[in-house]
């Protein structure tokens, strides 16, 4: 048995951690958080140079040809550092193109997606939080008309994977020329969203599975959430070790100590859950859907809980914009709602488990 990261995976995770440590201190993070577009070219380029953006793109097309588990442990680090930018949608779009575009499309996009020179995104949700493939109504066959909601960085995207009726996917190239983007005031300003209106937008069918694309995003959100939860706890512990009240550091008070211990016990095992969901995505097809849903529901729920508790543990300072803990609180809300609510995914877990049938 070896349910652990390989030396290569650990090294990759560490290198991403070091990069973000250097490129993204808390001042820089807040600058990007407060910026107009929430997308920092230098950070994006650095991630591209490290290979983070083409991790799952095959080597023939300029990527590293790694698997979901590798991408997930990297995503944990992005979550830990609160990395802003179009990463999530970009990785998802790249994956979908890898799986299901034709050779010409792949040649055209993958090499530049792998470096980050081009930006990809995915447009999935429709009204009423319709995140699931079977809920999509937007339809082809060749031109799209209608709206997708809460799309990540559509205005900057060079290529967009769109979910359409029947749980199919289509490719829109250079969407800036053919769609209308309505920016939204993103609560989580590290992941900017907008509504996208298609008006006779030309689109090409893709052969790949929208469900698998959904599962990929669920695993990545779980990984991000675990990193974020861990960061909230680390910040609260650091604060508890330095902040003094009543003549001692507040971490010595049992009330706070127990509060942080509860958070730690609540989140720490979740690391292994997202690992397994990622591993199942790669290697255990019969578990993949169910574990992706379970991990997304569980880990993002734990993240929001941890973010709330750790905000409280800090007291007033954490209620200020200048102290960046709120960045993770808002990421937690994003991770929990994006791609569908906890309650919805728990219902899916019940269905996928066949609980009501078996026995």
């Amino acid at each position, binding site marked *: 048995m070896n349910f652990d990261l390989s030396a290569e995976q650990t090294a990759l995770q560490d290198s991403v951690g070091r990069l973000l440590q250097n490129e993204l201190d808390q001042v820089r993070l807040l600058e990007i958080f407060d910026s107009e577009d929430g997308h920092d070219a230098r950070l994006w380029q650095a991630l591209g140079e490290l290979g983070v953006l083409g991790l799952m793109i095959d080597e023939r097309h300029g990527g590293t040809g790694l698997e979901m588990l590798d991408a997930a442990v990297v995503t944990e680090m992005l979550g830990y550092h609160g990395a802003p930018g179009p990463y999530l949608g970009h990785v998802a779009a790249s994956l979908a193109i890898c799986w299901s575009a034709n050779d010409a499309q792949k040649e055209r996009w993958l090499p530049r997606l792998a470096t980050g020179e081009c930006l990809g995104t995915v447009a999935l949700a429709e009204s009423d939080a319709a995140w699931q493939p079977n809920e999509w109504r937007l339809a082809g066959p060749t031109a799209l008309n209608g709206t997708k909601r809460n799309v990540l960085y559509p205005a900057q995207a060079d290529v967009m994977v769109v979910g359409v009726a029947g749980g199919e996917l289509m490719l829109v190239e250079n969407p800036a020329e053919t769609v209308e983007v309505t920016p939204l005031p993103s*609560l989580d300003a590290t992941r900017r*969203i907008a509504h996208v209106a298609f008006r006779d937008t030309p689109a090409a069918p893709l052969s790949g599975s929208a469900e698998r694309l959904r599962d990929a995003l669920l695993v990545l959100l779980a990984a991000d959430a675990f990193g974020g939860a861990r960061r909230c706890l680390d910040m609260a512990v650091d604060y508890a070790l330095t902040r003094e*009240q*009543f003549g001692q550091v507040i971490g010595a*008070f049992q*009330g706070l100590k127990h509060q942080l211990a509860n958070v730690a016990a609540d989140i720490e095992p979740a690391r292994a859950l997202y690992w397994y969901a990622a591993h199942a995505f790669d290697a255990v097809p019969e578990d993949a859907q169910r574990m992706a849903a379970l991990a997304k529901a569980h880990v993002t729920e734990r993240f929001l809980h941890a973010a709330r508790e750790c905000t409280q543990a800090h007291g*007033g300072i954490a*209620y200020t914009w*200048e102290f960046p803990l709120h960045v993770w609180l808002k990421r937690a809300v994003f991770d929990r709602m994006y791609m569908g609510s906890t309650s919805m995914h728990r219902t899916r877990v019940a269905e996928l488990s066949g609980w009501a049938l078996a026995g």
Partner: protein
Amino acid sequence: MDLSYGAEYEAFRDEVREFVAAHWSREDARNPERITAFRLKATEAGYLYRNIPRRFGGSEQPADVLRAQVIHEEFTSARAPMEIYGNGVRMLVPTLLECGAPWQQEQFIPPTVRGQVDWAQGYSEPGSGSDLASVRTRGELVGDEWIINGQKIWTSRAHECRYMFALVRTEPDAPKHQGISYLLLDLHQPGVTIRPLKQITGQSTFNEVFFDDARTPLDWIVGRRGEGWQVSRATLKHERTGIGNAETYLEQFAKLLNVARSATRNGRPAIEDPIVQDRLAEIEGYLQAHRYSTFRQLSMSLAGKDPGPVTTMNKLVVTNLGHMIAALAQELIGDASLLLPVYEPGHKVGDERWMNQFFGSLGIAIAGGTSNIQRNIIGERGLGLPRDQTGGDS
């Protein structure tokens, strides 16, 4: 058991209602002069500033919680202005009435009551949150002036305030609680810098206030040197006498029901979802318990009885209520929770307005002593458990 106010108070209610109808109309709300005039009339009639002597601009009425409640209900339902809202009326005036020198009362209470000046509260510091008595802002007596250096934080609306009442360390060699004085000072002076503090909601309702050789006269001290801690406790006492009010949360719950009606789950109104119903009913259990608990506390206070330890619990109870309501609302509004509510001209704010409530419920858990401090107070004053090191202000 009688939940009505009784004949005497219903007669009083009629009187108040007639007064309001005669002197206030909704359009007056846009006219500051009309508001001021109405407040004056309402004070003369005995409806406002009831515990402030007439010579300081109050109406000097005998304490009567039910009359106060009736006035509150009638004024609120007609949207008529009540007392000026602010730290001046709410905190400084009671403190001056209890501990202030006669000249301070004469000079400061009337303009505060008339709304001509307001006061900022200068208690919290970056290093002094729950451990308020550890304030480090220094005050040194030089000649006939206090020279003040240091920093305050969480000062609400400091920009709009003329004065501040502040806890300042004037006796650096005395024990922690005995080294503080309660000083008044003018914020309109070169030694004072006010910087707005942006909160996680994106709004700025608080400030940081920096003192760099700020000055205030020798006799702008309430109580004696080193007695500031006790004086401030008097203020806090006034702040806390308010019996936990359930109205705010009843309103929030009503709004929550509306969100549950308009939101959808699995293609049906969310309010038909058994999970949503279960959680709403759980919240309503807490809500109605607190509501009737406040009625009980009010009734006992009216009868001169001690409602018991429950008075130490109100803050934690409403903090938990706010959290439960906000958490469910955040789920119900679905993807609207991905948005920051932005209050700007031309921008329509939708269900994401609940995110302010969501963050606000956290802010409430933090403000005025974290929930952990509240738990200490409940444990020690409510349940009689021994004090520990964080006994705080008890």
